[in-house]
């Protein structure tokens, strides 16, 4: 049986591993290569590494770091950050990375998704959409952001996700800006809306604070990707840095919780 993908998401900032809250105040949590080694030992389903500096600083992906990550990583690796050309994507794949994530570049130029899909195959093209609940008294729905949520676009995330699927995306990651690092659960509303509009696999990111939150997502949407940062790098209410990941047994519980009462034994 195909299982939900439970995916640690690591953020790279100034060469180190950080965790943010609502896309702000990055807290240093360790060395990226060391984190990959630990997730290897824990047999993580996949790994997602996002460089949160590259696009904002207008620099190319850090290929030497990506090569080191790929060489160490024993599970499928998704890299994102600063990818805005076919050449970038091809070079990253050639370093041993399975999937390349595009975010800002896909929003401003959806045709790039098509060109990259033609070059590396659509199964390796991931689009990360940073979404945020519209704020304000009469505001309804969600908005799409880029550049670490400093730029907002007049696009409906749900229909835009669908158009990117048509353009060639093989997976859509919905990243909830307003839930980032808060560990109060995934935004199940947007998860359901995007999931129902898509044919390609969807992954949710932002808000997971417990394995139960993952089970709730699986219960709502079925076999999807459940990515998380804080959940897998922090322990306890004081957010002590401790890399952790569910065991095979806990993952089976998440799966069974999707169709039965939610009882998850926490580590």
């Amino acid at each position: 049986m195909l299982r939900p993908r439970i995916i640690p998401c690591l953020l790279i900032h100034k060469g180190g591993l950080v965790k943010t809250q609502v896309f702000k105040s990055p807290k240093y949590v360790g060395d990226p290569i060391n984190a990959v080694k630990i997730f290897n030992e824990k047999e993580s389903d996949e790994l997602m590494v996002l460089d949160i500096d590259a696009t904002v600083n207008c620099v190319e992906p850090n290929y030497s770091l990506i090569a080191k990550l790929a060489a160490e990583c024993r599970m499928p690796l998704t890299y994102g950050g600063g990818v805005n050309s076919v050449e970038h994507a091809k070079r990253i794949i050639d370093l041993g990375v399975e999937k390349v994530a595009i975010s800002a570049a896909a929003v401003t130029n959806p045709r790039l998704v098509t060109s990259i899909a033609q070059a590396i195959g659509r199964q390796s093209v991931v689009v990360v959409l940073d979404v945020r609940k519209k704020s304000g008294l009469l505001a309804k729905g969600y908005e799409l952001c880029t550049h670490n949520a400093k730029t907002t676009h007049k696009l409906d995330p749900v229909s835009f996700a669908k158009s990117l699927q048509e353009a060639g995306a093989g997976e859509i990651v919905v990243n909830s800006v307003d839930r980032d690092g808060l560990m109060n659960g995934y935004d199940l509303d947007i998860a359901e809306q995007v999931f129902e509009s898509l044919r390609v696999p969807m992954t949710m990111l932002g808000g997971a604070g417990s394995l139960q939150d993952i089970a709730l997502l699986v219960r709502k949407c079925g076999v999807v990707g459940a990515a998380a940062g804080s959940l897998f790098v922090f322990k306890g209410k004081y957010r002590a840095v401790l890399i952790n990941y569910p065991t095979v047994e806990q993952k089976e519980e998440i799966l069974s919780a999707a169709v039965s009462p939610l009882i998850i034994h926490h580590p």
Partner: protein
Amino acid sequence: MIRIIDYGVGNIQAFVNMYKRLGLPAARAKTPNDLADATRLVLPGVGAFDHAMQSFNMSGLREPLEAMVLGRGVPVLGVCVGMQMLASGSDEGVLPGLNWIPGRVRSFVNTPEGAQLAMPHMGWNDLQVAPGAKLFSESQPQPRFYFLHSYYFACDDRDQVTATATYGLKFDCVVSKGHIHGIQCHPEKSHRFGAHLLKNFAIL
């Protein structure tokens, strides 16, 4: 030396990295000269079938590889689209496959079961392994592998099916015809299960 065939398509480095960790000598082969010392061959592949076949046909490697695999019996492992290339042809394209293992590559979407499912088939799934399969010898029970594909191999000869997996429908996931093997999922990224299979292939 295990040679990973580099015809411009597929994640060559992931195999080199994995064999390095296993302590087995492996390197990429980009030219016919690189193949001279090969005792095992890995044929990776990703993306569209025709693109992979065309790149392979134009790489200058097909002829020497056919001499090695079909002539001298050097063991080969096709992975993902590299496995699909072993077939006679694919519903995804118009180019003929290598026909090293007779069968056809079919689309999940064109099946009643597959039409309902998210595509590609992405993530960890179980394998049902045929008894006595050498690639799985001394493998841990209930092997799980990482999948990422929208087409599957339908093998003509059921005796050449080493393992199946189920995504909506049951499909052929590992095929073996003597020294020619193909695997749809990604052993290079499937933790201890994949490492064990790649090791088995190296010492077959």
